């Protein structure tokens, strides 16, 4: 398997610029929600990294936290990068919207809001439901969501 990670020296530079970030052994980056916009802007606008393509945006619900996951690609250099944000407040999870940076964030954030109930602050016109009906109650991908049916329910 070829290696598509961002070169180590560029990651070091990022680490010294953003002290709050954590770089894991598998090259994933954990970013505090407060730094997300600044961090994403840096890796997108800096020509050395040029992570111009937001390939995937999703979230997962763990016992103690919610986590948003961003899979970024540099079409220019061919690098890939996974960025995660941990949201400890499960009652009122909020993370800055990436819509100012990528148009592609819009529908993916709406989907994540709809199914997982994460609020993307700064989303133009507050994210609205996209797959489910506007009158739907709850966010089904949450682990505590009570659903009818299911084989062993």
């Amino acid at each position: 398997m070829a290696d598509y990670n961002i070169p180590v020296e560029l990651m070091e530079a990022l680490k010294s610029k953003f002290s709050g970030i954590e770089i894991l052994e598998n090259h994933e980056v954990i970013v505090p929600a407060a730094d997300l916009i600044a961090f994403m802007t840096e890796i997108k606008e800096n020509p050395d990294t040029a992570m111009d393509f937001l390939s995937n945006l999703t979230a997962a619900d763990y016992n103690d936290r919610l986590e948003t996951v961003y899979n970024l690609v540099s079409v220019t250099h061919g690098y890939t990068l996974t960025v995660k944000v941990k949201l400890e407040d499960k009652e009122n999870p909020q993370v800055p919207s990436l819509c100012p940076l990528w148009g592609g964030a819009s529908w993916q954030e709406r989907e994540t809001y709809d199914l997982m109930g994460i609020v993307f602050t700064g989303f133009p016109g507050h994210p609205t439901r996209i797959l489910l009906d506007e009158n739907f109650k709850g966010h089904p991908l949450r682990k505590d969501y009570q659903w009818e049916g299911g084989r062993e329910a």
Partner: protein
Amino acid sequence: MKTETYTLNLGPQHPSTHGVFRIVLELDGETVVKATPVPGYLHRGIEKLAEARTYTQVIPYTDRMDYMAAMLMNWGYVAAVEKLMGIEVPERAEYVRVIVGELSRIASHMIATGAYGGDIGALTAFTYTFRDREYVLDLLEMVSGSRMTFSYFRIGGVVADLPEEFFPAVRKFLNDLPAMCDEYDGLITGNEIFQARTKQVGIITPEMGINYSLSGPTLRGSGVNYDLRKVRPYSIYDRFDFDVPLGQNGDCFDRFRIRIDEMRQCKRIIEQALDQIPEGPIMGKVPKVIKPPVGDAYAEVESSKGVYGCYVVSDGSPKPYRVHFRRPSYINLGYLGKLCEGWKIADVIAILGSIDIVLGEVDC
């Protein structure tokens, strides 16, 4: 003279939407001022359902996303689970995957080509591509026993080896394929009315394509050379010699045209795979009960519509803790609203068709 805009509701039942999909158009005369796409009518909650199934039981659900290219949908999911578990797929299985995957791509592009002709008013085109797609479905039925929802891939390989009679049949089909493509080109691509309806319509600039996370023919129509099989070759795609067709203008015509060119490239890939395919097992070493280690993995493949990704989270149990599918149709459709602005109503149909969406995948 004072004029007012008015609202026109297109769908959810409208043939040009290829399923149940709605667009609310705000019109000034015949010109679109604002277009608001409304998806979700086919939402089945596959990601939630997957959490209550075992890893293998999720495979049939992936068939039902892009059911025009179900082999490729299987592939993205098993690739993510294999990555999570570190499973090595045997050589022969990789070749089988490439062969059936590319056949699935041809079948999908045939529908896209014919249905687009139908959208523009050339309904005859539909009958030609559907006639030829039957040959592909026959081949895939030979392999998997099913014509649309194959569930042919397994974590670690494929479920059955290619039957003896498949090889001469696929060779014959590949010999006929260029003539089929020539026929589509003669019938649709070269048609003057078709060109008038699609050239310089719905232009996507490369910058906007990348900014909106578009992928597949929708992005490559704008000249962006982004095909995962080339830029980050997965499986064994680095062993094949093929070209990535690119558009120049980013208009509906370019997006349509490169699908036909891609079919010709699929032929090259499959022929090389048939020449190179080794003997050997078709399933890797996989435990009886699939329990990936705690962690997550994200894998992407190039489906017929674009980059199809799958994010899998495991908590160590036999059921996936979380599955997310990055569906190319859904994300490509996210740009539709912006793309339609300023064009006429008739162009909306041309633009929507050129993106080639499948609602099963959009709504998931």
